[in-house]
């Protein structure tokens, strides 16, 4: 005697027990009611909101990557800052001098 003979016996048992084919009362009407029911209304604002929420994680990831890469590479010296400053101050100085 082995597990295969027991398996065969149990399979034979399963063959002898056919499940019932009884149907709940008026089941076909339930199906038809399901078919006639209108589908869910699509809300454009909900879709837009969901899309924005889905975009949060990738945007955050890109921001962190850019921040990390700029920290790792080091920021280039801001060569434009000094001339801009002197130009702005020069204009102010001119205005002060011209004031009566």
């Amino acid at each position, binding site marked *: *005697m*082995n*597990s*295969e*003979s*027991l*398996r065969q*016996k*149990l*399979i*034979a*048992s*399963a*063959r*002898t*027990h*056919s*499940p*019932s*084919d*009884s*149907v*709940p*009362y008026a*089941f*076909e*009407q*339930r*199906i*038809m009611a*399901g*078919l*006639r029911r209108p589908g869910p209304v699509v809300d454009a604002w909900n879709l837009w909101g969901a899309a924005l929420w889905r975009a949060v994680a990738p945007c955050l990831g890109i921001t962190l990557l850019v921040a990390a890469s700029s920290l790792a590479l080091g920021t280039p010296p801001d060569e434009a800052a000094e001339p801009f400053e002197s130009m702005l101050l020069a204009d102010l100085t001119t205005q002060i001098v011209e004031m009566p």
Partner: protein
Amino acid sequence: MSAESVPTAPIGASPVESDPRSDEDLVRAVLGGATEAFEELVRRHQPRLFATARRYARRESEVEDIVQEVFLKAFERLPGFRFEAPFDHWLMRVAVRTCYDFLRAHQRTRESAFTDLSDEEEEWLNRFRADPDQADEKADAARALVQRLMETLPPQFRLVIQLLEIEERSIKEIHQLTGWSMPLIKVRAFRARAAMRRALARLKPGKYL
């Protein structure tokens, strides 16, 4: 399979007049816009679908959900029905695939539970051990044991054993029902039998086997 009672048509309820049209004519009517013709298709095929669903789901509420899903899917996919095979074959394909989806969605590990046998099941196994021919295949204990054994199997094994060994369908039929290739069906059947033997071997080794 299920001990739950199923409310069926009340006694004395007048039977619904059956539509003389063939399944294919009804499908053409539905596709032509007469949605109400689908009700007759449901009425004709629901007993077979309930019997099929009860092979995979234990609770009656789950059985009803499966059958409902089968009909809703069939209605949605009706434009894809090509009138090459009988409608009931096409519908059974939808049903088997829906049952398989149900098994995958409700996959649970019940291996430990299989070793906890009821008194009746132990008694049936003892009878089998004493003399395999004396253990009645029609006994409720045997039915409960095989049900529990099937529930321990992964969905693809359970489906292949159900179709190949219990329903005694051919490999070609299973290929048409499931969409699995024939070599894959054979491999899965081989592995499923081995998994069943392993589960049975765990039943208090030496006591029953």
